[in-house]
């Protein structure tokens, strides 16, 4: 049974229709990469999954919860969906450790001692175990994104959403983040990733979905989509980003 089901999703900003009827499913443990030109609606699609955006039509079901139904307990839903942003969005007034312990204790009711243990463990896993007491502004972009990933993982989500997690990073820093994400994918996490990193798609993704103009244009096995796109728009995009 799929953990994410999207059926005929329509999303409009005023008069601009950004998503024009998206339907797709993601199975537990699957890693799906969303690619496409900017404005194609892939980030918006991700944000509809945890209710950061409202939708106009269609159904979104995540972990058996109908996200946009009137009575949905959004807090309960969001505890099960982790999200990593392009701009990290760490809380600048809290240390790296507090960035993890605050939501764990306040939103999930975990004891402070347990939260601290989780923070220590996860920060070590993402390679910044020595930065517990540091404030985010004193970290590099790559370190900030590592902390943000640890913060999302600390909630023990069933699904992880990555919205262009390496787009704001210097090229030499993206590799480390992508490696963490690949390890996470290998460990069986369900991941929906918006990215332009085709190497990541090839190595870590089970499936790639190419979007343009608010619709799914083409989907399939990542290498097939990158090396041998069937649709003209996919072909153009792959040429533009310099692969193929």
């Amino acid at each position, binding site marked *: 049974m799929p953990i994410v089901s999207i059926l005929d999703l329509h999303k409009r900003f005023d008069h601009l229709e950004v998503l024009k009827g998206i339907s797709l499913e993601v199975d537990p443990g699957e890693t799906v990469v969303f690619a496409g030109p900017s404005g194609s609606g892939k980030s918006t699609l991700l944000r509809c999954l*945890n*209710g*950061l955006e409202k939708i106009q039509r269609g159904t979104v079901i995540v972990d058996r919860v109908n996200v946009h139904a009137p009575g949905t307990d959004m*807090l*309960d*839903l*969001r*505890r099960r*969906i*982790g*999200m990593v*942003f392009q*701009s990290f*969005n*760490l*809380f*600048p*007034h809290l240390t790296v450790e507090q960035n993890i312990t*605050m*939501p764990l204790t*306040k*939103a*999930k009711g975990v004891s402070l001692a347990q939260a601290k243990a989780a923070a220590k463990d996860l920060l070590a896993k993402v390679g910044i175990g020595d930065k517990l007491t540091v404030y985010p*502004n004193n970290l590099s972009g790559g370190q900030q994104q590592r902390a*943000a990933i640890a*913060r*999302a993982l600390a*909630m023990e989500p069933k699904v992880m959403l990555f919205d262009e997690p390496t787009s704001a990073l210097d090229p030499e820093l993206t590799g480390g983040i992508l490696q963490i994400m690949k390890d996470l994918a290998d460990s069986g996490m369900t991941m929906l990733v918006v990215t332009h990193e085709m190497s990541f798609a090839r190595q870590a993704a089970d499936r790639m979905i190419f979007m343009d103009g608010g619709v799914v244009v083409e989907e399939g096995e990542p290498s097939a989509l990158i090396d041998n796109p069937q649709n003209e728009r996919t072909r153009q995009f792959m040429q533009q980003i310099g692969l193929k």
Partner: protein
Amino acid sequence: MHPAEALHTAFSVFKLILREGVPVTLSLAVIGYVLAMLIGGCVGLVRFLRMPVLSQLLRGYVDCMRGLPFLMIVFFLYYVLPFFSIRLDAFETAVLALSLHSGAYLSEIVRGSLEAIPFGQHEAAKALALSPAKRLRYVIAPQAVRIALPPMAGQSVLHIKDTSVVSIIALTEMTRVARVQMQSNMEPLVTFAVLAVMYFAVCYPVLRYASGLEQKLAAKRA
């Protein structure tokens, strides 16, 4: 006038202002500003949250306070409220006028500081399953306070200076004591020089504190 004589006059003016004016001025400043901060915090928060109806009403209040001369507000409260059977003495009227006036400006500082927190902070807090109240309490407000504190300290100087206006409704605070003294000793230069130094001695440290705070908090954010 002989220098020794001037010094003597200055000292007696100083003593009188200190004894009769300073307690009232400081009471007006402290009580008025504490109330102003309560008003400013509540009004700023309500307007930030865009609570329907209440938000619009409070906007009207803020616009009135910002768009009318402070002296007129003092007169209005002092002379008009009794017609509605609301009787306040001069001190109560002055505190009310000062706190309503400063409160409006403070509410704009509070609202602006809350609105200055980037959208991404709200989104990250939402995505981490924090409730609206917890997002405000643990993510938005703590950051907004750091932005609001320096201008709030600066605003308190304006508040202290405004206390001199209420001498007009026969309240014996520093400025009124000085004016009465001047009328009997006929030494405006010495009298108002003493008054000026006394106001400055209070306001200047607050000004320095505000700019120090600004630098400290700016350094922390960088």
